[in-house]
């Protein structure tokens, strides 16, 4: 059962990767990157259970945090063109 799940996750990663490579707009790529990050977590969990070591789940949680930070940074850059953007400064000016 875990083998089938691993294969399914791998196929999904391949599909998301196709979108990331072909993606006409940047947002396709960002979304595909985020999806692949989440799928990597899934793959991690499934492989952990496949090899009988469910403690891989903790590492999956850390990956989730990193994925969030990366996507937030990309989107913030795209919205404001600057990573050190501050809401307070906009209100002042």
């Amino acid at each position, binding site marked *: 059962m875990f083998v089938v799940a691993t294969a399914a996750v791998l196929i999904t990663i*391949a599909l998301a990767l196709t979108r990331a490579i072909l993606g006409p707009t940047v947002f396709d790529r960002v979304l*595909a*990157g985020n999806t692949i990050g989440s799928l990597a977590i899934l793959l991690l969990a499934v492989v952990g259970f496949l090899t009988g070591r469910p403690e*891989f789940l903790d590492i999956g949680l850390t990956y989730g945090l990193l*994925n969030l930070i*990366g996507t937030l940074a*990309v989107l913030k*850059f795209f919205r404001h063109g*600057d990573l050190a953007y501050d809401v307070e400064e906009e209100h002042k000016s």
Partner: protein
Amino acid sequence: MALLTLLAAVTVAIVRQRSLFGVVVLAGIYSFLMATLLIALDAVDVAMTEASVGAGISTVLLLATLHLTKTTEMSPINRNWLPLLVVLIVGAAVVWGTLSLPPFGVADSVVHQHVAPRYLAQSIVETGVPNVVTSVLADYRSYDTLGETTVIFTAGIGVLLLLRGLRRRDDIGGGGES
């Protein structure tokens, strides 16, 4: 193997991509796939470093760099085939070199006969650390680790000094304008 194929596909896509923003996103994807591959190889600590540095920090750093430069790569002026030839020859030499290596994962190859058995057998008695990798890094090779830490610390100080100089110049410029 499937992961390796995906990695190769991402690499080709990164090379062919002209929009540097897309390159940053694809590099993040590459890091996540690489980290998963390392976990499949049972190197959990390396995978953790790859995910945090490759997918987390370097994405942010590359984006900050993109803010300072243009976001599209110039198309090459002339196509020069000599570098490709050199790369192919060197790559073939490296692959040829791997043919004489012992098979992957064999426990009785020469590398694993020198000090590894002693580490595995004695690390609890000699260091009292339950994780063998940690005991090797922080005890048997502690001078090596100390050197690495010194290098990274020096680099961090250098970057902080550079950034501080930039900020001070900004302050002076802002004061002049107002």
